[in-house]
């Protein structure tokens, strides 16, 4: 079995799977169960400043959207930070860390955007023996209305300022969690970096209304007839999270800033994808909330098998391996030609590829009277929609055309030269518009 041990900004854990700051890590009871199930670490649910704890609504806190078979694919919540007294949380963190010294215990924090508030809480957290802190500049609901959470995360200057306060006050590693509810994730990450953050963790949840009650005409979850936007997470947000992680990883200004990847990690494969795009480890919430803590065992065995099969000896070897291949659109090779190919032995003749291509795309799939579906290479632009709508995995594939062969759609010879939009004759601002793509 592969060695899954992880060292993230000096915080060691037996595997790279941490539970994110969220309901599963709100108290000792849950965290102990999580560690017994095999989780490598936790980020304790966000603590607020000392005093009367926050209160939560007493109606539903979550809403969901579902895929096939009522599989939960998106979860929305309007829960706030921990609603338990600070001292109780601190006692429990200390007890858990004492009993599980090999596991990572990071504490998420959210206090008002005032230096005194941060300088007050940091020493008491440090006293628990926690391995680090995560600054919650992410939560988009409730606390943001009070000038915390995403209200801070949406102002890079505030991120930098608070990060600096924390770095000046504590010896603990500081992980900054920016909010995804912005237009360019690179700006908050750069600000965290300038403030001296040891790492960033993302994404926190995305502003959302998950559904509307059509009998009462109210957003869901509905509290006494009204609803408020909440934070969206789960498998549905993974693509957004992957992009944001990659944007930070390939940004020269933050290229060396460690990232803890969060956002819809449900399987070992999701975790490996985050890591390949630059995440040093991953944090999980919705998968655990949907299936219980045991899911980590599949993540451990799956990642281990994957690494063994490829001779990868440490998780660090995966981290960032896909980053060099993340490019801007204009860099993509326009001379690369692919065509859809249908494996007739696997085809079950549902015709969805045909409907998709015929109704909404390029009329590149034909259907015979006896329901044989065939790709017409002279029409196929390799858009991949047929692959995406086919219910049988591996039935339709995209096959690259070898250089030197003829692309039946254009009648041109497939070139082995790399040429992109920047040099394309149709580009009005092209740098080399006198060069023909086929040479």
């Amino acid at each position, binding site marked *: 079995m592969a060695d899954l041990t992880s060292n993230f900004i000096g915080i060691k854990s037996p595997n790279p799977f941490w539970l994110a700051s969220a309901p599963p890590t709100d108290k000792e009871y849950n965290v102990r169960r999580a560690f017994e199930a095999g989780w490598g670490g936790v980020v304790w649910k966000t603590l607020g400043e000392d005093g009367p704890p926050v209160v939560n609504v007493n109606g539903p806190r979550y809403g969901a959207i579902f895929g096939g078979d009522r599989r939960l694919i998106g979860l929305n919540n309007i829960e706030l930070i921990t609603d338990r007294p600070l001292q109780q949380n601190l006692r429990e963190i200390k007890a858990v860390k004492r009993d599980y010294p090999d596991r990572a215990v990071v504490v998420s924090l959210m206090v008002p955007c005032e230096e005194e508030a941060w300088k007050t809480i940091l020493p008491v957290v440090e006293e628990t023996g926690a391995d680090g802190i995560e600054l919650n500049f992410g939560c988009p609901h409730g606390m943001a209305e009070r000038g915390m959470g995403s209200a801070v995360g949406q102002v890079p200057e505030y991120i930098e300022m608070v990060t600096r306060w924390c770095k000046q006050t504590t010896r603990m590693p500081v992980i900054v969690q920016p909010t995804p509810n912005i237009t360019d994730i690179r700006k908050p990450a750069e600000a965290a970096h300038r403030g001296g953050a040891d790492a960033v963790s993302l994404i926190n949840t995305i502003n959302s209304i998950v559904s509307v009650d059509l009998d009462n005409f109210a957003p869901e979850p509905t509290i006494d007839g009204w609803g408020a936007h909440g934070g969206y997470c789960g498998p549905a947000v993974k693509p957004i999270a992957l992009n944001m992680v990659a944007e930070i990883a390939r940004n020269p200004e933050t290229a060396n800033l460690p990232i803890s990847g969060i956002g819809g990690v449900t399987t070992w494969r999701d975790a490996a994808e985050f890591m390949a795009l630059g995440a040093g480890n991953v944090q999980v919430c919705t998968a655990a909330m949907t299936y219980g803590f045991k899911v980590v065992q599949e993540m451990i065995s799956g990642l281990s098998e994957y690494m063994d099969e490829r001779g990868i000896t440490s998780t660090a070897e995966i981290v960032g391996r896909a980053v060099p291949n993340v490019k801007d659109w204009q860099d993509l090779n326009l001379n690369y030609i692919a065509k859809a190919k249908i494996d007739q032995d696997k085809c*079950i003749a549902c015709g969805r590829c045909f409907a998709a291509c015929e109704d909404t795309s390029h009329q590149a799939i034909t259907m015979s009277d006896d329901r044989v579906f065939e790709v017409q290479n002279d029409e196929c632009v390799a858009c991949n929609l047929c692959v995406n709508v086919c219910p049988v995995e591996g039935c339709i594939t995209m096959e690259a055309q070898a250089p030197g062969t003829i692309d039946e759609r254009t009648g041109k010879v497939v070139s082995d030269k790399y040429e992109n939009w920047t040099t394309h004759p149709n580009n009005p601002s092209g740098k080399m518009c006198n060069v023909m793509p086929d040479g």
Partner: protein
Amino acid sequence: MPNDMLAPGIQGGRLSPDAYARNFSDLHPPMDDHEALVAADRCYFCHDAPCMDACPTTIDIPLFIREISTGVPTAAAKTIFAQNIMGGMCARVCPTETLCEEVCVRETAEHEPVQIGRLQRYATDALMATGEHPFSRAADTGKRVAVVGAGPAGMSAAHRLAMHGHSVTVFDARPKPGGLNEYGIAAYKAPDGFAQAEVDWLMKIGGIEVKHDSPIGADMTLESLKAEFDAVFLAIGLRGVNALRAEGENLQNVEDAVDFIARLRQAEDLASVPVGRNVIVIGGGMTAVDAAVQSKLLGAEHVTMVYRREKACMGASEFEQELATSKGVQIIYAAAPVKVLGDTAVEAVEFAYTRDNNGTLELTEETFILPADQLFKAIGQRLDGAPDGLEIEGGKIRVNDSGQTSDPKVWAGGDCATGGDDLTVTAVAEGRDAAEDINAKLSAEG
């Protein structure tokens, strides 16, 4: 309990009341909401779906399943009823395993089709439970159409004609409407009086009058109907029953399976339906299976179905055969009766194995005798009592693609007419299509 399985001869009350109730409850129980959503979720919403093509009434199956999956079974029901007004009964009795579900792409992919039949029942039950009828009748056209036979073909035609505003009078030989739905299918396929409930619901369209105990024949002839009505639709079924042509056929307790099935369906109390200890059913179609399985369910000790050809030729589907054997019916293939043995009543039947000699079935020397105190004949029905003057082809009333007979004022459909495969769903389709053609002709007349 006065009797049991072992009581000799033909006896009623072989089972406890609980056992009767259990044995004759729904063969495919209705789905609850959760089951329906899970089952609906498996549909791929195929393009130009094979299931639709396989349905004789061309129900838009992917659409109605999608309507179920989005939580609107009543919309799904309207999709079904628009094509097949007896979608409720068809959901119960269709051999889906040889129709829509056989060609389901998930049968191809996983050998487990979407449960189209049960989903159809879920949807149609949901709408019928509201008591509402989803269609409204067009303004009265002043045209009158006679429908002979209140079975699936006749009622389907009557509904569609009434919808178009024609006034329909349905004549039926029996005291109740429904035809084979009421008299001819196994009780466990449509329990709780569904056949009558469906007719009552269908009649809510208005403009349909049903006259019972009114067979076509002596008093009411095709000529008199033609004189009184603007068009006639014949859906008289196959009233004749084929003979065994074996010695001893006239002994007591040798009966047509269709009569046994009808008697059972009409019984107020199943304990009052006597059944033999040793029952033999001769035949290989759905009627044979229905008779054999119900004999077993009534408490017969030994029930044997004997079919003269190989298994592959059997009319009953694989599912029906498995149903029979799972209930304890023994099926013997490639054997034909040569003599019914007994003094006054049947006591045993002598069979000879058969062989296929280049398409001709012949008896072999190999014979065997099975004890029997009840023998049911289920070797096919034939047209009986068809009005004179109509062209007959292959023992059925010849019709064109629109259901019109050789008489331009007369249409026919269901089992009595050419085409189709003697299924309820085919009869419904033929009734509907003939009604459309009649409507077109009557509308053109002005």
